[in-house]
C-alpha cells in the first residue's frame, strides 16, 4: 500500500479488525508456528505406570502365572498394537490373512501398525516415555526390531523384561546362554537381548546369478575367485556402496575371508583393539577391493581408475543383474532368487550361489515388547503365536520369510515339513547354507568399516592404511 493514503481513511476500520484483534491474529499464527520450538524433553526417570499392569508383569516374569492366565488377561485387554516396517506387500498380506484371524480366535484384535521405518516405532515409544507414559499407558505393544533400534530401547531402559523363555513356544529356540550356538538368538548385532526379545526373522547373506550369463558352477565361491573372475571378465561385477547394509555385508565377507581368522576376531567390540591390530585384520580385504575396482562395472579395465558404478541399494543391484549389466548380486534372504523370479523382478534363469564360502553372515531380527506397552498380555500372546512352528511355516511357505526358529529343535518329520513347504532355494541346499553361515560382526565394526571404505575406496586416499583406520576408529 503506497504511503500516500488519506489519513482520514487510515483509521477507518475498513478491514473490520480492531487493534486487539489484529494482534490476536498475529499471536495465534505465531503460537502455532512456535509449537516447533518445544524441544523433546528428556526421558523422565519416573514413568507413570498402571499398577495393575505392573503387578501382571512382575507375576509373569517371576514365572508365577500359568499361560492360561495370560490368555485370559489378553482377552480382557482385547487388542494389541504391533508396530512393524510396513513396506512389504507380502508381509502385510500375510498378517491380514493369517495373523489377524489367528489372534481373533483368541479374542485379541491385532492392529498391524505399518511404519515407514522401525525407527519411527522407537520414536513413538520415546515420545511416550518423554512425557512419563509407562507400562499400561503407551501406544506400542509389540515391535519388530533389531540393531540400533533395539539398542536405543535398551539404552533408555524401555524394554518390558525377559519374556522370551517364558512363552510356550520358547521350546523352538536355543536360549541357553552357555551354548555358543545360541548367540544368534541372544545377541542383536552384539547387544545382549537378555531374553527381552524373541527371534522372528532370520537374514542370511546370499548371492545369486543369472544362469544365462554366468553358470552357478562358474560363479566365484571366494573373494580370491571373485578377483580372478573380475580380471577375466572386466565390467561384469559390482557391489552396493557402504554404508548401505548390503554393501557393508559384502565388505564384511571380504574381511572375514581376508583376515584368515574367520569371524572370531570380529565378535568383540572394536574399541578393545589397537588401531594397528584393526588395520592388520582389515588390510587384506581392502587391498583386494582396491585391486578389483578397475575391473568392476564402469571401472575402465586394467591400469585405469575409471569411475566404477556402486549401486546405492540392494534393489538397485538387483536391477543391474536383471538388466544383464552385472553377473552376480546379493541379498539378505536365502529365498531371494526364488521370490524375485516369482515377482518378475528377476529372470526365471536366476540361481542361488554359495558366496562367500564360510563367511555368509547370519543375523536375526526380533519381536520386543516396550516398557510402555498398554496391552502386554496380548503382546505376549501375539509374540508366542508368531513364534509357533505353524506360524513360521505359513510365513515361509506363503511369503518366503526364512525360519527364525532353530531347526535342530524340530523332530525329523517337522524338519521334512519345513523342506516341503520352503520356497525353491534355486540350486543350493539348506545344509550348504548352514555350513557356510557365520554370525554377524559386533555392531561396533560397522561404522569403522564404512568409514574406511569411504576414505580408502571411494575417495582413494593416499594416506597410510593404518592412518585411515586410526582415523575411522576415532570418528566412530
Amino acid at each position, binding site marked *: *500500500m503506497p504511503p500516500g*493514503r488519506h489519513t482520514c481513511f487510515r483509521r*477507518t476500520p*475498513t*478491514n*473490520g*479488525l480492531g487493534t486487539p*484483534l*489484529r494482534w*490476536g*491474529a*498475529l499471536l*495465534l*499464527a*505465531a503460537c*502455532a*508456528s*512456535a*509449537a*516447533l*520450538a*518445544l524441544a*523433546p524433553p528428556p526421558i523422565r526417570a519416573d514413568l507413570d505406570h498402571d499398577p495393575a499392569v505392573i503387578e501382571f508383569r512382575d507375576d509373569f516374569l517371576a514365572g508365577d502365572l500359568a499361560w492360561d492366565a495370560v490368555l485370559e488377561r489378553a482377552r480382557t485387554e482385547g487388542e494389541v498394537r504391533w508396530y512393524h*516396517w*510396513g513396506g512389504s*506387500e*507380502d508381509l*502385510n*498380506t500375510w*498378517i*491380514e490373512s493369517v495373523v489377524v484371524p489367528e489372534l481373533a480366535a483368541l479374542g485379541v484384535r491385532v*492392529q498391524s*501398525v*505399518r*511404519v*515407514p*521405518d522401525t525407527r*519411527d*516405532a522407537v*520414536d*513413538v515409544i*520415546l*515420545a511416550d516415555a*518423554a*512425557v512419563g*507414559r509407562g507400562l499400561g499407558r503407551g*501406544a506400542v505393544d509389540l515391535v519388530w526390531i533389531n540393531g540400533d533400534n533395539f539398542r536405543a530401547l535398551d539404552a533408555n531402559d524401555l524394554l518390558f523384561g525377559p519374556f522370551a523363555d517364558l512363552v510356550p513356544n520358547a521350546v523352538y529356540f536355543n536360549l541357553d546362554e552357555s551354548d555358543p550356538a545360541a548367540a544368534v538368538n541372544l545377541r542383536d548385532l552384539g547387544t545382549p537381548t537378555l531374553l527381552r526379545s524373541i527371534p522372528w526373522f532370520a537374514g542370511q547373506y546370499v548371492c545369486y546369478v543369472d544362469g544365462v550369463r554366468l553358470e552357478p558352477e562358474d560363479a566365484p565361491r571366494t573373494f580370491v575367485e571373485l578377483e580372478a573372475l573380475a580380471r577375466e571378465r572386466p565390467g561384469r561385477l559390482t557391489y552396493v556402496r557402504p554404508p548401505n547394509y548390503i554393501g557393508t555385508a559384502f565388505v564384511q565377507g571380504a574381511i572375514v575371508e581376508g583376515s584368515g581368522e574367520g569371524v572370531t576376531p570380529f565378535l568383540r567390540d572394536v574399541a578393545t583393539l589397537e588401531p594397528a591390530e584393526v588395520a592388520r585384520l582389515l588390510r587384506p580385504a581392502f587391498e583386494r577391493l582396491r585391486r578389483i575396482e578397475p575391473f568392476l562395472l564402469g571401472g575402465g579395465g586394467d591400469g585405469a581408475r575409471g569411475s566404477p558404478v556402486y549401486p546405492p*541399494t540392494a*534393489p*538397485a543391484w*538387483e*536391477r543391474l543383474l536383471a*538388466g*544383464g*549389466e552385472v553377473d552376480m548380486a546379493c541379498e539378505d534372504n536365502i529365498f531371494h532368487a526364488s521370490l524375485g523370479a*516369482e*515377482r*518378475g*523382478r528377476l529372470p526365471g534363469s536366476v540361481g542361488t550361489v554359495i558366496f562367500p564360502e564360510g563367511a555368509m553372515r547370519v543375523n536375526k531380527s526380533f519381536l520386543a515388547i516396550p516398557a510402555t506397552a498398554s496391552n502386554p498380555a496380548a503382546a505376549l500372546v501375539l509374540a508366542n503365536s508368531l513364534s509357533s512352528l505353524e506360524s513360521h511355516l505359513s510365513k515361509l511357505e506363503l*511369503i518366503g520369510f526364512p525360519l527364525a526358529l532353530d531347526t535342530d529343535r524340530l523332530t525329523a518329520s517337522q524338519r521334512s515339513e519345513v523342506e516341503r513347504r520352503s520356497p525353491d532355494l534355486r540350486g543350493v541346499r539348506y545344509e550348504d547354507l548352514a555350513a557356510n553361515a557365520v554370525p554377524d560382526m559386533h555392531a561396533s565394526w560397522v561404522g569403522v568399516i564404512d568409514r574406511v571404505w569411504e576414505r580408502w575406496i571411494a575417495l582413494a586416499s593416499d594416506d597410510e592404511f593404518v592412518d585411515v583406520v586410526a582415523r575411522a576408529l576415532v570418528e566412530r
Partner: protein
Amino acid sequence: MNAGIRSLAAALAALPFAALVIASLAFRWTWPDLLPSTWWWEARGEARLPIGWDYVASPAARAWVGLATTATIAGAVTVVGLAIAWPAARVLAHERFRGKAVVETLLLAPLLVPELAIALGLATVAVQVGVAGSWWGVLLAHVVPVLPYLVRTLAAVEVGFDRDLADAARVHGASAWDVLRYLRLPLLAPGVAASALFAFLVSAHVVVVTVLVGQGRVETTATQLFARLGGGGALDPITAAFALLMTLPGLVALVILQRVLRSQTDVAAVSRLARDPGAGADRTRTLTP
C-alpha cells in the same frame, strides 16, 4: 500458433505420469526394454499372492483408507490454516508496526527448521495433550508446517488488494459485510485459492510429522509411499501405483478449485458490483453452486 505449444506442454506434463502408469502395470520390465516384457495382467493369473494393482486394490494394502485419510486431513488443515493465516497475512500486508520483522521471521520459522527436527517435539506435545494417534492430532500438527506457506502467499495476495477500493465502497454506503462479500472475496479468491491448494498439497506430503504424531496409526498415502521407498527406492509396480495415488488428492483439489474460480475471476463484473452492490442479487445466484 498456441495449439502446438499447448500439446507439447501437455505431453511434457503427461510424460512422468505415463512412465508411472507403465511401471504400475508392469510385471517384468528390465533395462534396456522400452516397454515391459511381461505385463501385470499376463502374470496375475499365476501369482500366489496379489501382485501390482491387485494388491493395491486389496483391503490389505489400505490404499483407499489412506486416500480418504489424506483428503480429509488435508482439507481440514486447509480450512483451519486459512482461518489462522489469513487474518495474520492481512495485518502483515497492510499495517506497519514495531517488531514486524520479528513477527514475520517467527511465522516463517517452521520453514527454516527441518521437518524431522520438529516432528519429535510435536509428537511429545501431542501425547501430553492427548491427541497423539488420532486424526485430530495429525490435523493440528499439520497446521504448523502449513502456516508459513499460507501466511507468506496470503500476504502477497493481500498486498495486491487496493484498500482504497474498500474505502470508496464504504464512502458510498456499503456495509462491512458488503465490502467483504462483493469486493474482498471476489477479488482475493484466485490468490486465496492458490494458497489453499498450496496448504492442501503440503499437508498431503507431510510424512514424519504424520507418522510420529499419528503414532503410525494414521496412515496417509504419503506415509504408505514412504514405507515402500524404505525398501530401497526401486520403482516396482506397487510403489509406482502408490506414487500415482499420491497425486490424486492434489489433482482433485486443483480441478475443484479451478471450477470454483472460473466463476469468480470476472474482475470486471466484480468491479461493477463494487460500484452497485444492489446488482449483486442476480450475480449471487450464479456464484452459488
